[in-house]
């Protein structure tokens, strides 16, 4: 517990144009940032808009910018991020603001689709299970990225997304990488083409903000490097497209 029993919480109100409004929120033990936002909405101003669902770090809907950094708010303790008694809570960067702390996530998820983030196999329910060796290299690579909850923290933290609005971003490319390592998937070539070029993996500068901020400790840049190598090799051999 901090010495003060109240937090000074500045919350973004409005859309792209708006302002920070400051609220006094009582400090509690083991309080999360989501608890703070919920308190404001329930006890101070019911018109505050924000998103959450699971509250246990599974659904990925509660991400916001907290004191300048994108975080999953349901699993972020106030004590970890508070500066003195001040918290600044804003919507995620690199996404259009719908209202207050809620952003429009359509472009983020459309990019997953554009990166061919869908699995496509050939077996039907009448076929036997595919056998994938758990200790194979490909399965290991897929495992490393598979726990993504789609919170967009990486996307909001990525400078390349800010510079190139068309860039697919770390989450979509991480998804593509897990599928590139799925031996059952049959659209590898199309996917490699979809994630190539300056909207895809080759635009990444390996700055690593995504690795640093990912609440699930995934390293999207590792997958992106893998895609770069696969795609460039295929392109030079004339096997891409």
């Amino acid at each position: 517990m901090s010495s003060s029993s109240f937090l000074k919480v500045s919350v973004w109100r409005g859309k792209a144009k708006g302002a920070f409004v400051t609220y006094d929120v009582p400090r509690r033990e083991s309080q999360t940032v989501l608890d703070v936002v919920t308190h404001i909405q329930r006890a101070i101003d019911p018109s505050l808009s924000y998103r959450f669902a699971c509250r246990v770090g599974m659904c990925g809907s509660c991400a916001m910018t907290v004191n300048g950094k994108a975080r999953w708010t349901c699993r972020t303790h106030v004590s970890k991020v508070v500066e003195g008694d001040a918290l600044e809570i804003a919507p995620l960067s690199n996404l259009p603001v719908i209202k207050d702390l809620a952003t429009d996530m359509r472009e983020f998820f459309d990019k997953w689709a554009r990166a061919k983030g869908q699995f496509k196999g050939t077996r039907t329910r009448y076929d036997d299970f595919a056998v994938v060796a758990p200790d194979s290299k490909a399965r290991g690579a897929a495992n490393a990225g598979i726990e993504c909850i789609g919170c967009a923290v990486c996307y909001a933290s990525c400078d390349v997304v800010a510079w190139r609005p068309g860039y697919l971003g770390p989450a979509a490319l991480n998804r593509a990488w897990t599928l590139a390592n799925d031996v059952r998937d049959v659209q590898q070539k199309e996917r490699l083409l979809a994630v190539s070029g300056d909207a895809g993996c080759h635009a990444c500068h390996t700055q690593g903000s995504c690795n640093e901020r990912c609440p699930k400790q995934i390293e999207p840049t590792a997958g992106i490097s893998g895609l770069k190598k696969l795609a460039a090799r295929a392109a030079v051999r004339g096997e891409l497209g």
Partner: protein
Amino acid sequence: MITVEQAARITEAKLWYWQRISAMVLALCVIVHVAIMIYAVRGGLTGAEILGRTRGSVSFAAFYGVFVLACAVHVPVGLMRVAEEWLHLDRFLSVVLGKLFGVTILFLGLRAVYGVFTG
């Protein structure tokens, strides 16, 4: 058949590959170059001394020729990115700017190599 946009993606993938390869060459070149510099500056450095080493030396000319070539491949790709992302130039202008810079490096670099070789 592939679309124009897909063709552009393939070009991007190849450019990345060439930038990688040229970076590896440059890494080696820089190490050798720095080693030569450290060796050469012992006890002062004069123009005559440099020319004495480089004049007529095919291996010197070949080494620095490769160095210049790797620069001319590597630099334009990076500059295109900077032009697009930081100066917000469009694709076409960035490519032109990058290529111009590459050709300039190639010309000035090779001229310098030729200069110290024939000296």
